[in-house]
């Protein structure tokens, strides 16, 4: 193994010197994992994720990751990481699009099993005929898996969110998985400038006994869980256990808010948030909105921007406050169903002012002009 010095997370995230590099999103994943003190990484190819896990494989060959292999399918990989996490090590994997849906049954199980797994999701269209192009539709399916969901806008977010995800996920009072989502191609394959910390420093190792549930290593007392297994529903206890456990997983996500605040500086970022017209969105749609807002400004239209970084837990209070005085809220999205719009409408009191769209799907980018058109309409 390559020797790296352990650095306190707070110091690594906020104080360590940073060097600017010009690399692709996939390469940023490698740089983050290199500094994350990952024990095991398990891979399975799917465009646009594959490159990132090739590179994590290189980290294994170089001695930065202790164990690495290619599993036989996304479903299997997402189960293999369960075993590894239950044994008390830090685990990383990545998938996207159809791969995420192939593995889907595992995700609520990760949360329910309180596993601090970190998975990168490189989003991709799910439609038939088959598509490999960018589309954030899969996120609609992931919202209620119990995972913490972070959405990277661009290069810098990938680096920071991935590293911070491990620390947030592994807090004893959280200890649930974190999905770090990034838009396929738009972010994974774009070469961009990103500031990274020196490779000689890494995060502290995962402490297995910080887990709120027993580690499966036979180094703690093997107890008889119950007289009847939960699945039997043969008594009130099993019902109560299921009901309270679902709430506990949700509560764990709620408890993550303060860590997300601490490490990511909040669940949202905002610019010019007192403008009458607000754009609220996440991921690449934020980048496209930046361009549209600059164009609107030249026409004398004032538009504010709210970037949602954390989608689960949802920044309900933040959004309610930001939306209170806005006259119109535009929600550009890279998917057909408009899941972000649904989310916003479900928490904003006067949701008639929420404009769902523009929406682009099928793999095309969103021309800033489309957003500008929507902005112009809102001024009428």
């Amino acid at each position, binding site marked *: 193994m390559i020797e790296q010095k352990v650095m306190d997370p707070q110091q690594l995230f906020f104080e360590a010197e940073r060097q600017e590099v010009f690399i692709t999103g996939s390469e940023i994943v490698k740089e983050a994992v290199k500094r994350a003190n990952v*024990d*095991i990484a*398990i891979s399975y190819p799917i465009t646009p994720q594959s490159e990132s896990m090739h590179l994590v494989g290189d980290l294994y060959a170089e001695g930065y990751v*202790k*164990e690495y*292999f290619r*599993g*036989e*399918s996304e*479903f*299997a*990989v997402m*189960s*293999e*990481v*369960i*075993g*590894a*996490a*239950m*044994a*008390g*090590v830090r*685990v990383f994997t990545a998938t996207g699009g159809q791969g995420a849906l192939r593995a889907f*049954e*595992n995700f609520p*199980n990760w949360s329910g*099993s309180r596993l601090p797994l970190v998975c990168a999701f490189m989003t991709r269209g799910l439609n038939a005929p088959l598509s490999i192009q960018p589309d954030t539709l899969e996120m609609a399916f992931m919202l209620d898996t119990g995972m913490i969901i972070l959405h990277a806008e661009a290069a810098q977010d990938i680096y920071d969110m991935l590293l911070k995800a491990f620390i947030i996920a592994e807090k004893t009072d959280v200890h649930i998985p974190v999905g770090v989502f990034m838009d396929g191609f738009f972010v994974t394959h774009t070469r961009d400038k990103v500031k990274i910390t020196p490779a000689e420093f890494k995060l502290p190792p995962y402490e*297995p006994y910080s887990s709120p549930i*027993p580690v*499966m*290593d*036979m*180094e*703690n*007392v*093997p*107890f*008889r*869980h*119950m*007289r*009847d*297994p*939960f*699945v*039997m529903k*043969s008594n009130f206890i099993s019902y109560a256990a299921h009901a309270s456990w679902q709430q506990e997983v949700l509560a764990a996500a709620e408890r993550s808010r303060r860590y997300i605040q601490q490490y990511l500086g909040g669940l949202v970022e905002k610019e010019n948030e007192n403008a009458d017209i607000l754009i609220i969105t996440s991921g690449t749609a934020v980048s496209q909105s930046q361009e549209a807002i600059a164009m609107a400004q030249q026409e004398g239209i004032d538009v504010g921007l709210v970037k949602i970084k954390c989608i689960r837990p949802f920044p309900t209070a933040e959004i309610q406050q930001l939306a209170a005085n806005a006259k119109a809220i535009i929600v550009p999205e890279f998917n057909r169903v408009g899941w972000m719009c649904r989310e916003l409408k479900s928490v904003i009191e006067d949701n008639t002012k929420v404009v769902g769209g523009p929406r682009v799907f099928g793999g095309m980018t969103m021309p800033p002009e489309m957003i500008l058109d929507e902005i112009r309409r809102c001024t009428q």
Partner: protein
Amino acid sequence: MNKNLFKISPGYEEIMPAEYLDLINDGPYGKNYGVDDLGTFKELLEEHPLCAGCGLALSMRLILASLPNPEDTIIVGSTGCSALAFPQVAVQNIHSLFGNQNAVATGLKRALKLRFPDKIKDVVVVAGDGATVDIGLDMVMHSWFRKENITTIMLDNEAYANTGGQESGMSQEKAVLNMAPTGKKFPKIALPEVAQAAGCAYVGEVSPLQAKRLGKMVRNAILIAREIGPTYLQLYSPCPTNYKFKSNETMQKIKDRVKDGTFKVKEYITPEAEQFLAGIEEGKK
């Protein structure tokens, strides 16, 4: 596992459940017990919620009594009847999803090797026939192809029993079961042969009728998996409920199958594994 871990702190003896006290005083941890010793020690399985006469429950008791290293064994199960009994077993057990047991076991074993490089941690998969040969077959076989150091044990009751007696890949041809209303259209899957071809170092078929043999085979399978490579055991464990026979006829069912030639104890071992076992025997002398 450090035995101090499960010792009861002074003063707490009275409030701990009786079965826990029994486990500490008369349990099998570190004792090297086997099938022959059943009845003389506190078993790992405390009661169970399975049907009267369940062949699978008997197989489980025999497996648990044969673990060479129960204090450092983790069992990975799957959805099915056996999953109902595992929460009552005093070794750590994982029940994740239906069919993913060998994938979970792969990750678990590799992670335990990282964390405990100098300690034996046995990972044993115990799952039903549906979990092993149908829904989880890709992951079962890939764990063999990858030469994972895990033992896979199938509790073969020739049906999906927990969901009400549907046909499985291990049901016999022509068996009339739910979802096979006119009888199964293809033969029982030859998983032991598949296991040999897929790289298992040791493969066996046995049933609780041959209890001592079963115990020895479980032990062999676990010891070989530690050092040589993947092993597979298939335990014929008839289901009185779904095959509609009386609960006291389970052993007779197996005898009938032996008689008509549809069940036979079989063992396959690679020369490397055989040499390894011989080495262990040598060490004992």
